[in-house]
């Protein structure tokens, strides 16, 4: 492509608080419509907002985690526009004095680090939700205000991203940070994490920015990636034809996978921002910042680095483990308990634990196999062998029993007694003279067959390594 794509992203994350931003209503998702409302979040005449301190603290924590400069003085502003899901027909947001400005997020794309600058981080209130009746020809819509007033964090980047991969990495990194610091559950299927993208194209090598198109209604990371591809193709074909890309706001249609014009630049809203007179300014002093900083856990990027250094696991594995804070915590708890074998524990978690979690659609917190149980399994593994260990793992999940108790119950300990095995091997050779002969003639697969026969006899309890040695010794002796 002869064009370079220039992209910025606005992320809306619903903050994880018990109650709404300006009233005491619950923020629970999925309740009956309009059951979590009160005069304040319905915008009745005469009501006033009172700031939810937790929501503000969450925002401060997020701003710090995104390396923002924290404003000493923050204030709220009214953003005016008419829409039926907006009870007051203005949204209390921040415009003139955001909580955080000039931050950044470091991302890794194809092994290379890149810094994405954050323009600002600010706190605002969520709108309600329109419900359109499915009956055809219905001439009305319904509004559910349960969501109205839920605290919303908006994170705005600079137009720093140049490829789909960068955007994807940014979204994942950001989501991960928000999950790590515990300010949002980031559940996209519940609308807790949404995006707006600005996309423009310019000739490669050009310093001038092209006309920017803003796209709203991106309710998943997948939608963002789709819209980028769509817009690149749409805009480049316009430019190829020598036409202008209109500066406009478009709406993404996830069903048809197209973006459609919402309004042109001329029709853009004048939000008539002015300071919210019903709230008082919030002053953030150094003490508050320091205090908040102590509540920020190690963030994914540094954790990943530390895992590589401390546990000598691969960067790739460290990436998988730190992708989910809970998983990283699980891993570290295992390592702490076992005081040994981080590499093996990492393998178990990445291969077996993750597979089970995905299949069972659960998270590691609710996983039946506790770190202690996994460590016990790894410890007992040399005595039972890898393949039985896998069976035991499945049994642990199904029954909730520990590895030692399963092993004991089913007497799964491997036979390591050489003299006992010697007798069995001799018997197997006697019973399978053809195979023994074939091995003598150099047919390696015959050995595998013989070991398999032995395993059958021992019900899998024979140690395959020891078996191999005994067979080799016996068969080579026999051929002499």
């Amino acid at each position, binding site marked *: 492509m002869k064009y370079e794509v220039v992209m910025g992203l606005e992320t809306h994350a619903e903050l994880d608080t018990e109650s709404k931003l300006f009233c005491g209503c619950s923020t629970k998702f999925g309740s009956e419509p309009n059951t979590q409302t009160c005069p304040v979040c*319905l915008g*009745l*005449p005469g009501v*006033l*907002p009172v700031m939810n301190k937790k929501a503000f603290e969450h925002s401060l924590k997020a701003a710090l985690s995104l390396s923002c400069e924290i404003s000493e003085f923050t204030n709220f502003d009214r953003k005016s526009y008419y829409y039926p899901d907006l009870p007051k027909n203005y949204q209390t947001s921040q415009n003139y004095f955001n909580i955080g400005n000039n931050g950044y997020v470091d991302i890794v794309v194809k092994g290379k680090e890149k810094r994405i600058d954050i323009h600002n981080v600010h706190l605002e209130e969520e709108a309600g939700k329109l419900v359109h009746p499915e009956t055809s020809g219905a001439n009305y819509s319904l*509004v559910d205000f349960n969501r109205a007033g839920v605290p919303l964090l908006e994170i705005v980047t600079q137009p720093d991203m140049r490829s789909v991969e960068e955007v994807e990495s940014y979204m994942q990194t950001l989501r991960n940070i928000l999950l790590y610091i515990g300010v949002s559950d980031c559940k996209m299927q519940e609308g807790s994490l949404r995006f707006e993208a600005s996309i423009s194209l310019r000739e490669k090598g050009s310093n001038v920015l092209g006309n920017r198109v803003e796209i709203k209604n991106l309710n998943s990371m997948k939608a963002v990636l789709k819209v980028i591809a769509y817009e690149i193709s749409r805009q480049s074909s316009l430019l190829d034809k020598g036409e202008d890309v209109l500066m406009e706001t478009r709406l993404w249609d996830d069903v048809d996978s197209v973006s459609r014009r919402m309004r042109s630049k001329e029709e853009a809203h004048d939000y*008539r921002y*002015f300071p919210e007179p019903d709230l*008082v300014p919030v002053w953030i002093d150094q003490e508050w910042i320091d205090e908040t900083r102590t509540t920020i856990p190690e963030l994914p990027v540094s954790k990943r680095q530390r895992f590589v250094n401390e546990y000598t696991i691969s960067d790739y594995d460290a990436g998988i483990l730190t992708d989910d804070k809970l998983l990283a915590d699980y891993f570290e708890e295992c390592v702490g308990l076992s005081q040994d074998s981080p590499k093996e524990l990492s393998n178990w978690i990445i291969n077996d634990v993750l597979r089970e979690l995905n299949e069972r659609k659960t998270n590691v917190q609710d996983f039946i196999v506790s770190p202690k149980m996994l460590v016990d399994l790894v410890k007992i593994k040399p005595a039972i062998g890898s393949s039985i260990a896998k069976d035991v793992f499945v049994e642990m999940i199904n029954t909730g029993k520990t590895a030692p108790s399963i092993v004991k119950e089913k007497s799964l300990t491997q036979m390591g007694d050489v003299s006992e095995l010697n007798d069995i091997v001799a018997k197997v050779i006697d019973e399978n003279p053809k195979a023994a002969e074939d091995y003598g003639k150099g047919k390696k697969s015959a050995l595998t067959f013989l070991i398999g026969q032995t395993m059958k006899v021992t019900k899998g309890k024979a140690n395959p390594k020891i078996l191999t040695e005994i067979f080799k010794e016996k068969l080579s002796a026999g051929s002499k």
Partner: protein
Amino acid sequence: MLSHELSANQIKEKIIKREITAQEVIEELFEWINLKEPLIKAYLCLDRDGAFLKAKEVDKKLDNGDKVGLLAGVPVALKDNICTVGIKTTCASKILEDFIPPYDAFVVKRIKEEDAIIIGKTNLDEFAMGSSNENSAFHVTRNPWNTDCIPGGSGGGSAAAVTADTVFMALGSDTGGSVRQPSAFCGNVGCKPTYGRVSRYGLVAFASSLDQIGSVTKDVYDAALLLQVVSGHDGFDSTSATVGVPDYISDINNVDGNLKIGVPKEFFGEGLDSEVGSAVMNALEIYKKNGAELIDLSLPHCGYAVATYYIIATAEASSNLARYDGVRYGHRSQLSEDNIIDMYSRVRAEGFGSEVKRRILLGNYVLSSGFYEDYYLKASKVRNLIRNDFEDAFKKVDCIISPTCPTPAFRIGEKITDPLQMYLSDIYTIPANLVGIPGISVPCGFTNTGLPIGMQILGKHFDERKILKVAKLFENGTDFHLKKPELN
């Protein structure tokens, strides 16, 4: 003396002493209302049943020897922009004509807790926008001193009711003078406390940074009584102050006459009616005789107060009134609606009166992109300059005295076609709202034609106690507050 002619405190004492029951007070009051209300039209809604129910409750408490509140049995009226659970709160607007709030305003809760009896809701200029009551969507309240005259605004209903003795005391809201100006025009005591002193929760917002709930009473003592009840911090209003509330009542008469009173020249200049001017000068002489020192002041930026006010107030109003869209409550057009914009337009075109529309337009204009810096932001800066003027002044004086309004009550229809002239009627009251300081208007004389004249006393932030005392000192030496209009 008929019971309705007594002050709130006097009737309360009588009720507590069981010289009269609360129910008898209500009965006699409603008889009087039936007689005089058709003349004055102060109310938008009366709650006779609710009043009797509460009166019964108060009587029962007293009969049982139970403790009663500070306003035991006192009939109170509320400006109809203060939310009352179960009673219509219309803001004198068609857009809220049938709106019944599901909650009580903070001040309503407080007076109920103190055993006041709510009589009804009083008329106002639509959404408290106006200085004459002529902007009410329902009817114009008359000035009890001359029914051809306006009672003032926006809280003309409350002031007229108190003056006509159709209630003992009332609560109003004061955004640019809406308590003090009608009180001056009707000859009663109107007090606007410091911004933040009384919770605004449940007061339907006009201009949030200027709105303050205030009292309309027959005398200064009653003002202290009512303010004592409604003042104080409220967790539901972020702008409500945490400053402690002193005792306004017990030592109200204990005031040192040796006061330093500021007399700002900007409040005695062009446009001031000569009768009003000399009444206030006479009042100042009385203070002087009591030992006060009069200090000439200049508040140089007050000349910009009205302009500043009409930028800030309309900006905030345009946003505060955006919620009246017919989606969740309020007026809905009977005409068919093709789309949501259509619906909004019809609801608002039909629901709002012309003055409200004018201010919404003005407000949207001053906030619009490209004008914000020139208007709203500049007005905010001027507001700071005016604040500084007052801060400097209060370094030298205990309080500031001026006329409440440049003229006495004008005639119905006289200024309704000239909004600018109408706006100037609040020229002396507006600065206190911009600055947030408390102010009280007390009657200080009458014109030749028998219309009351009000004097305004302004104090420092949270110094209501001082201005109440200064007002009481004047009242103790005069009888203007005792004069009653002939209601025929």
